[in-house]
């Protein structure tokens, strides 16, 4: 697997004595990838911003100063103000909280459910696989954003429901990934070996199949956070996600779009923020894939 190739690539003789393990080897490979490290640093930066928003932010994100409507960026308001005179810098900082929160938790939700279903489908096969796979097909038959809109429309527009909708929509992505991985692993000799020593199915699933299916999930999950952030922004833009006065980036875009010509900063800063976070997760995801996926190696 990935680890094997990694350690042979960089001087196996010296490495043999170093502390080594699948994850350590992957981290070594990841660290050498400058672009991926840039992604990781950006993500750490955004996470810090999100955590420290109340400390850094110069204003209250809800505070309206109607006298200062649509002010361009200045030393007082670094990113300018919006049409209600709220400080955009503050709102963009707080927006990082919402986007990272939605991105992370919707992906965690999809991963948990998708992995569970995927493992069951792949391991037990037959009719179990039939039912689960057809469910995935049905979910995949709809464009994801349309399905998310439908789910939010049923549940009512709110940030929680948007998160839930995004999580549901993405279940099949992880489910199919895990199913495919499990189908491959099932025929590995070490699974037969585990059975031959008398391990129960549950033990084989937890100790051998799950740990060995993790790498593609981690890669897909990182890339998935990027997608989820865009989907959350899209739902926010459509008024189906975060509700005012929550400083959600997508919502900020839609609120300001009528001022795009007169006060472009109202659109540029939230827009650039979305782009940078998504870019960061994509860069890191690609780097993780290179570090973890043996097929990407020479």
């Amino acid at each position: 697997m990935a680890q094997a190739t990694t350690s042979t690539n960089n001087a196996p003789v010296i490495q043999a004595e170093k502390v080594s393990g699948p994850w350590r080897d992957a981290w070594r490979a990841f660290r050498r990838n400058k672009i991926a490290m840039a992604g990781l640093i950006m993500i750490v930066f955004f996470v810090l911003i999100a955590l420290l928003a109340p400390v850094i932010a110069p204003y209250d994100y809800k505070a309206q100063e109607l006298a200062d409507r649509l002010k361009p960026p200045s030393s007082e308001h670094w990113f300018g103000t919006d049409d209600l005179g709220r400080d955009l810098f503050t709102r963009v900082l707080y927006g990082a909280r919402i986007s990272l929160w939605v991105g992370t938790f919707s992906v965690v939700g999809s991963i948990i459910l998708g992995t569970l279903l995927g493992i069951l489908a792949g391991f037990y096969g037959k009719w179990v696989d039939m039912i689960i796979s057809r469910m995935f097909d049905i979910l995949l038959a709809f464009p994801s954003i349309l399905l998310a809109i439908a789910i939010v429309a049923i549940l009512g527009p709110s940030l929680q429901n948007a998160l839930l909708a995004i999580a549901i929509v993405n279940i099949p992505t992880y489910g199919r990934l895990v199913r495919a991985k499990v189908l491959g692993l099932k025929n590995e000799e070490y699974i037969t070996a585990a059975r031959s020593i008398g391990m129960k199915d549950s033990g084989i699933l937890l100790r051998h199949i799950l740990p060995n299916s993790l790498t593609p999930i981690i890669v897909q999950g990182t890339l998935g956070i990027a997608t989820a952030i865009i989907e959350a922004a899209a739902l926010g833009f459509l008024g189906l996600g975060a509700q005012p006065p929550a400083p959600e980036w997508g919502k900020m875009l839609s609120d300001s779009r009528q001022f795009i010509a007169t006060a472009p900063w109202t659109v540029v800063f939230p827009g650039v923020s979305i782009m940078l976070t998504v870019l960061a997760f994509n860069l890191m995801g690609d780097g993780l894939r290179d570090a973890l996926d043996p097929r990407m190696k020479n």
Partner: protein
Amino acid sequence: MSEPLLQVEHLKKYYPIGGGWFGKSPQLVKAVDDISFTVRKGETFGLVGESGCGKSTTGRSILRLIEPSEGKVIFDGKEITALSPEELRRTRKDMQIVFQDPFSSLDPRHTVQRILEEPLIVHGMGNAKERQAMIQRLIDVVGLTQSHLQRYPHQFSGGQRQRIGIARALSLQPKLIVADEPVSALDVSIQSQVINLLQDLQEEFGLTYIFIAHDLSVVKHICDRVAVMYLGRIVEIADKHKLYTKPQHPYTQALLSAVPEPDPDRKPERIILQGEVPSPANAPIGCAFHTRCPQAMEVCHTHRPELAETDQGHLTACHLFTEMRATGQTHLA
């Protein structure tokens, strides 16, 4: 003659291919087609044949790692084929397997320590401290050192990995070990080390082996009795010496004549078989070997020869010998 440890009776493994959806009956690949044999306590029983003849399927069906389609496997007085999943799980302690590929048979994410401890935990053997002692003894027995325990499989060579695989099989102190081509993936120099290890362990722990291989010289070295398989059937079973000196079945003769001769001056007569092995999905009627047999007769095309004793402890499935027996009987009468 020691008592039997394992009896295999009319074992069959058929795989359906195609069909099945619209009432069309699926075609069957007969990977293992009605084979019977007995393995005695303490012996090494060889199972040889070319690729795809069903040796591995047989080995795995015996352990029910593959569910046999039909037939009985009786191990140590227990009918393996009739056990419930839970009983089977507990019985696995006594019968283990060593795999052919030392690279895929060890979980890449587990350390050697964990690989060796897992069987002990599964069967609730000892507490943490006792298990540690057992693992240290195991690693010693197979010729590795303590410092290897914290490493991962990819940090070992093929021979070392195979030793880990053997240690894992030994950890539960089994009575029977199915060695599924344990050395064919290794370098020749390493092969002999592993073979010797297997022999030493057999002596030390009183193990019984089913040794699956396609390398006849290796089989000659390690086995006591040998069964030759062709297209899912056993064509000949005999004591090693008898099989190698007086092979009876034309297939065995051809197989043995292909073994490389170390002495360059001796030019053994090679029996070159014509044609290919038929597909097991479409095995010939009658004797499976008749399509390639240099001595095929009329009866071989229509009737499947049964495995029958032709000499003491020598069983052959060939009409040449059924004929002989029949004529022998007429002479007597």
